[in-house]
């Protein structure tokens, strides 16, 4: 399920390292979202350029986290495979380059999705009594980074839960 043993030279077999990477990923994405909002507020006339810039930043961020789970590199022939991994939960792993999940992996994958969407549902349910939308910026353009942030949460939250919860990876011949 987690097919790689290292990411950008960092060993991700130990769960501790994976947790640091996941925490760093969400810190960067949150900072990018806040940065995009601040920039759009300061330079509303350049909103298109700023939005395009952050759209690409978010996309690479999403694929980056996906690369920790999937064995997909940034070579041209793998671009389509990389995009397919984003939709893997719908495709049940049939069309990706990775081997199909076995029964335990499928169970863990389903559990991560259940946990992720339970968390998201909780946020949505809490949004109404707390009226969270009041904190959104007034200008419509400023909402785009937040929408991107939400898309990333939906795509990457199950992967983050998996990376966070899977125990230290063993070697094939470990006894």
């Amino acid at each position, binding site marked *: 399920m987690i097919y790689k043993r290292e990411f950008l030279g960092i060993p991700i077999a130990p769960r501790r390292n994976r947790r640091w990477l996941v925490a760093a990923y969400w810190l960067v994405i949150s900072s990018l979202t806040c940065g995009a909002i601040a920039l759009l507020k300061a330079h509303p006339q350049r909103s298109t350029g700023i939005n395009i810039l952050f759209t690409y930043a978010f996309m690479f961020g999403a694929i980056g986290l996906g690369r920790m789970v999937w064995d997909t590199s940034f070579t041209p022939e793998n671009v389509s495979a990389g995009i397919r991994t984003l939709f893997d939960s719908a495709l049940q792993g049939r069309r990706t380059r990775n081997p199909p999940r076995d029964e335990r992996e499928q169970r863990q994958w389903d559990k991560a999705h259940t946990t992720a969407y339970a968390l998201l549902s909780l946020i949505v349910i809490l949004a109404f009594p707390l009226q969270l939308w009041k904190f959104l910026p007034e200008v419509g353009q400023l909402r785009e980074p937040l929408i991107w942030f939400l898309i990333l949460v939906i795509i990457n939250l199950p992967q983050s839960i998996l990376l966070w919860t899977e125990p230290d990876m*063993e070697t094939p011949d470990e006894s």
Partner: protein
Amino acid sequence: MNTTPEKSPGESGLYNRIAVLRAERGISRQDLADAMDVNYQTIGFLERGDYSPSLKLALSLGEYFGLPVEAIFSKQPFKPLSQQVYGQRPTGTEK
């Protein structure tokens, strides 16, 4: 010789002899995983008792080792093989 020491059954609540059987036959986790068509890490989860296999996987393991499923998995701790063979606790283990 006590080859199956009592230990916690793990999250699954099942005791198993997979590690012993694998060691007896001198096969790696990867070899067993390939034969069962699962990830080698799943074998580790099974051995530690952290994963409860499906009936299909349990039967496949029985078939692979040439043993009935109840010889591989149990809800109760397995008795040491010496005790099973000779019907009493080995000398030196009595309190």
